[in-house]
């Protein structure tokens, strides 16, 4: 019984935890500009994150080593450091976007300027990381984040032309206002939003925090293989809402308020309250995860003691790293930069940095010295090799496309 409960809770938090500011913004932007015609990119991203998280979770459970311990061991100091710097920069960028997202959501709830919410949000993130137990932190944020399901409910209440949405997704109708280059740019952005590297650092380090063993493999696999696809469905619902309400009116999403407005139109003020709660929970949860991930990455790489299972005094440098990253995020946001812009860049750079962590995990998931008999099977290896190519192509194409399209303008 307890086991079923653990699996169910894990799946629920995986759904709620899947969507963060990157998914919220990117899916709404794409829905408002391309309808559902980039739905395939979400599917590709979800399958990718399932592969990646499943492998790194297995490596963490069997070997007890988290992602950056492995990167250090397998790549050596030189390539490892380059990898660390790139991954850390992107994680801090994502953290900045998430803290900004919390502030924007709180603005929608209160009408108070986001600049005033930023320090409050960052302080709350720090406080939770410092004080709250890992499992409580993860479960509360994940379950509250589930209120984003209201996007799906609202989509039904809006009563869209389902055939039209299906046609957009499957028949690739043309977009008179867009160029093929922006189409591909946003395909990579969606891919990066679904496959954010921090999710994997967090997932594998979380496995070590919660002391997973071989016995937890089934639970962790169920969380990933059921929770993440359902989270992907939620992403598609966000895009569907934007495609139904905003696309026909020629409104391009460039703010969080536009992302949640279709929910208000479909489900009224109650729906709006629920979706704002969901956005706050999802971005706050993701801010916790990215903040911790930055600490995990640096501490694991340098061999410092890390983890929330230790008291902060026993993992001082780990906690100091998190504090510094939060301060950096706040300072960046206080310059008045638009958090939505930071988000749009962070998902694309996520796609750029992805091969750096994917490759070592793929290699180690095949190494019996780490995972014993639980090495990748033949089919898994075939699929993950194809994904290695997809990830490499996306990483190489991302920056040229960003320049050519002026970041999707």
């Amino acid at each position, binding site marked *: 019984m307890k086991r079923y409960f653990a699996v169910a809770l894990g799946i629920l938090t995986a759904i709620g935890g899947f969507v963060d500011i990157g998914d919220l913004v990117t899916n709404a932007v794409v829905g408002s500009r391309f309808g559902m015609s980039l739905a395939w990119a979400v599917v590709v991203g979800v399958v990718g994150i399932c592969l990646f998280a499943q492998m790194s979770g297995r490596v963490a459970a069997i070997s007890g080593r988290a992602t950056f311990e492995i990167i250090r061991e*397998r*790549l*050596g*100091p*030189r*390539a490892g450091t380059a990898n660390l710097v790139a991954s850390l920069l992107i994680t801090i960028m994502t953290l900045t976007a998430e803290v900004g997202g919390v502030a924007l959501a709180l603005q929608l709830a209160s009408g108070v300027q986001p600049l005033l919410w930023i320090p409050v949000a960052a302080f709350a993130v720090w406080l939770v990381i410092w004080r709250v137990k890992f499992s409580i932190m993860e479960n509360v944020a994940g379950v509250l984040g589930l209120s984003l399901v209201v996007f799906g409910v609202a989509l039904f209440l809006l009563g869209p032309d389902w055939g039209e949405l299906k046609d957009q997704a499957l028949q690739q109708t043309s977009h008179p206002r867009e160029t093929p280059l922006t189409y591909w740019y946003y395909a990579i952005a969606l891919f990066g939003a679904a496959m954010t590297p921090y999710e994997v650092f967090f997932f594998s380090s979380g496995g070590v925090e919660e002391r997973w063993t071989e016995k937890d493999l089934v639970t962790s696999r169920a969380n990933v293989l059921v929770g993440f696809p359902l989270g992907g469905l939620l992403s598609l619902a966000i895009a569907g809402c934007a495609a139904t309400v905003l696309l026909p009116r020629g409104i391009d999403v460039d703010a969080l308020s536009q992302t949640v407005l279709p929910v208000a139109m479909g489900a009224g003020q109650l729906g709006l309250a629920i979706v704002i709660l969901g956005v706050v929970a999802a971005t706050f949860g993701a801010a916790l995860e990215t903040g911790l991930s930055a600490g995990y990455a640096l501490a694991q790489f340098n061999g410092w003691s890390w983890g929330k299972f230790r008291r902060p005094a026993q993992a001082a440098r780990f906690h100091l790293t998190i504090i510094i990253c939060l301060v950096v995020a706040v300072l960046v946001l206080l310059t008045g930069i638009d958090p939505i812009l930071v988000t749009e860049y962070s998902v694309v750079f996520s796609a750029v940095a992805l091969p750096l962590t994917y*490759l*070592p995990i*793929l*290699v*180690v998931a*095949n*190494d*019996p010295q780490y995972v014993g008999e639980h*090495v*990748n099977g*033949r089919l898994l*290896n*075939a699929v*993950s*090799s194809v994904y*290695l190519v997809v990830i490499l192509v996306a990483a190489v194409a991302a920056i040229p496309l960003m320049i050519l399209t002026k970041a999707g303008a």
Partner: protein
Amino acid sequence: MFLSDVLRRPVVGPDGPLGFVADCRVAVDGTPGQLLANAQLVGLVVAPRNRQGFLGYERTSVSSPAPLAQWYERRQRGSFLVLWEDIESIDDVVRVRPGYTRWSSAL
């Protein structure tokens, strides 16, 4: 001398350049210590090109996923192990004694 200083240095044999130091091999068979026996340096792995490592694919026991394993095997081609006894001197370049043996670098 630090091991990390030796890595990536050029290796010269009696008849000219051989490549670069890619890795070192140690065997844990020295005098017994508290947990493990002390590590003994067996030799240096010399690769024809000065590139990054093999990500563990120098071990014959690991051959999946196939495309990656083949890629790294190809990069590894031409690399060999020189025993520590066959190393003449180490300064800016690593010199190998005449009459040295090229051992397989696979594990």
